[in-house]
């Protein structure tokens, strides 16, 4: 009998009810993965691969995390970082959507900047920082500039590919139903492009989050604690538990937001019969 047989909901020893067995079926692979990672980490600590003041044990890091979570400074850092992320993403959303619709609709504009948008998407956002710092100085504007530049091209590309892949029959139908110009966009083309748009948003979010972290490491503003600044501070003062705890927080926030986008995307696809439930 393998581990997976033993842990499977079919195992009469642990089979309780359908709901809890479904939760268990969903949960155990994740628990197993997490325990493997923590086990591996603990092993590295036990064999002293690196000194403990550089690589602390999981227990130290989690107690540091709990301690952090009781400090006001930590929440103020999370707050700063999250508001930057949200504001940057919303600006990128507006810019990306407007540029995307314009490029999709106006042929010369597409010829002019269509490939540039894809090009921008491949540009590592950290490469923008030296210029951003020259242009805006070490401040909020420099960070926002790079976050928006990181996220907007993905969002614009989502709109463009969504509009491009609207079945021609839908536009024909729209015209036959009397939809003209903006109406055609509002009622037919944009809703039809929604699944691709949401993928663009998901990707845009992940680029925004990465750019933001790069920005917060490089552009540290005095008296303005942020998760990135906390990371850099922990490195400079060799506070390894704090560094790892902060990294953990960054990972969790990224995953949570991505989860929200995935759930939205799944809902849209199920509603349209593009994929089945789950």
């Amino acid at each position: 009998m393998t581990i997976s047989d033993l842990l499977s909901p079919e195992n009469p020893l642990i089979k309780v009810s359908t709901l809890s067995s479904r939760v268990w079926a969903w949960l155990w692979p994740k628990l197993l993965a997490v325990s493997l990672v923590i086990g591996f980490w603990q092993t590295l600590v036990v064999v002293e691969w690196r000194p403990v003041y550089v690589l602390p044990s999981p227990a130290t890091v989690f107690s540091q995390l709990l301690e952090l979570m009781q400090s006001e400074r930590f929440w103020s850092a999370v707050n700063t970082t999250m508001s930057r992320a949200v504001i940057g993403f919303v600006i990128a959303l507006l810019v990306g959507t407007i540029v995307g619709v314009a490029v999709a609709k106006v042929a010369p504009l597409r010829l002019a900047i269509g490939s540039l948008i894809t090009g921008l998407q491949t540009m590592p956002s950290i490469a923008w920082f030296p210029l951003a710092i020259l242009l805006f100085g070490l401040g909020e504007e420099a960070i926002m500039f790079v976050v928006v530049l990181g996220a907007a091209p993905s969002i614009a590309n989502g709109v463009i590919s969504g509009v491009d892949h609207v079945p021609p029959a839908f536009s024909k139908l729209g015209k036959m139903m009397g939809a003209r110009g903006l109406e055609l966009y509002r009622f037919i083309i944009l809703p039809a492009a929604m699944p691709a748009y949401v993928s663009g948003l998901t990707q845009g979010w992940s680029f925004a989050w990465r750019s933001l972290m790069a920005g917060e490491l490089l552009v540290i503003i005095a008296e303005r604690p942020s998760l990135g600044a906390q990371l850099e501070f922990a490195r400079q003062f060799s506070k390894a538990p704090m560094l790892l705890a902060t990294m953990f927080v960054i990972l969790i926030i990224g995953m949570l937001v991505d989860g929200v986008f995935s759930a939205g995307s799944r809902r849209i696809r199920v509603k349209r019969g593009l994929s089945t439930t789950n």
Partner: protein
Amino acid sequence: MTNAVNAKVTRGSSQTNSSPALIIRGLEKKFGSGNRSTVALQSFDLTVQQGEFITIVGASGCGKSTLLSLVAGLEKPTAGSLEVNGQVAFMFQDATLLPWLTAKQNIELSLRLRGVAKSERSGKALELLTRVRLEHAANRRPHELSGGMRQRVALARCLAQEARIVLMDEPLGALDAMTRDLLHDEIERVAKEAELTVLFVTHNMREAIRLGDRVILMGNDPGRIVHEQNISLARPRQIDSADVATRAADLTKQLREVSTHDNL
């Protein structure tokens, strides 16, 4: 534009009941220009009375779909004249219901684009769904409907557009035989009740005879009418009856004689 010089398109309302729904004279449609142009339709003449059910059959590439696009206004003719009296709606092979809307919302959108007031849309949409006997499926989304049900919603949507003329481009081509038979009854009934003029394109001879008051046979290279026949069989007709089968066999023979086979 040289296109506009020889071609004339007039669109009117159907209020004057005596005038034909469609008057087509010398209609021509060329794609491309110069040596590389292809003539999709040439010297096409057809008059369709209001309430008439026309079925159009022909080999592939004979310009059947081009004809419908011209009548719908999705394409412009290169020569000839076209007079369309009444609102036109289109039924495609795949019903093209919008997948993010329910059956009822699909119809409501049609009403909305026609300018029907918000307060009236819901009731009107339900009434139209009832006319195709789908009131029980009002809140289902297209992927939750069968192929036949989707086409019935599409038919109701044509009614929502207040169409007097409905163009059907092989609307039942993707359906199984039994659903197809039921849809024949349904389309025949709704078209009669709503006094619709129908141009119904199909490649199925029996279907053409089952439904049509008149069958138009089209030949290819260039697309043109090669034969027209009034179908005097009494309704209701059965698609598997001997009468329908005999006539279908005759028409198939005629079509073989006039078709060039090099692009089949």
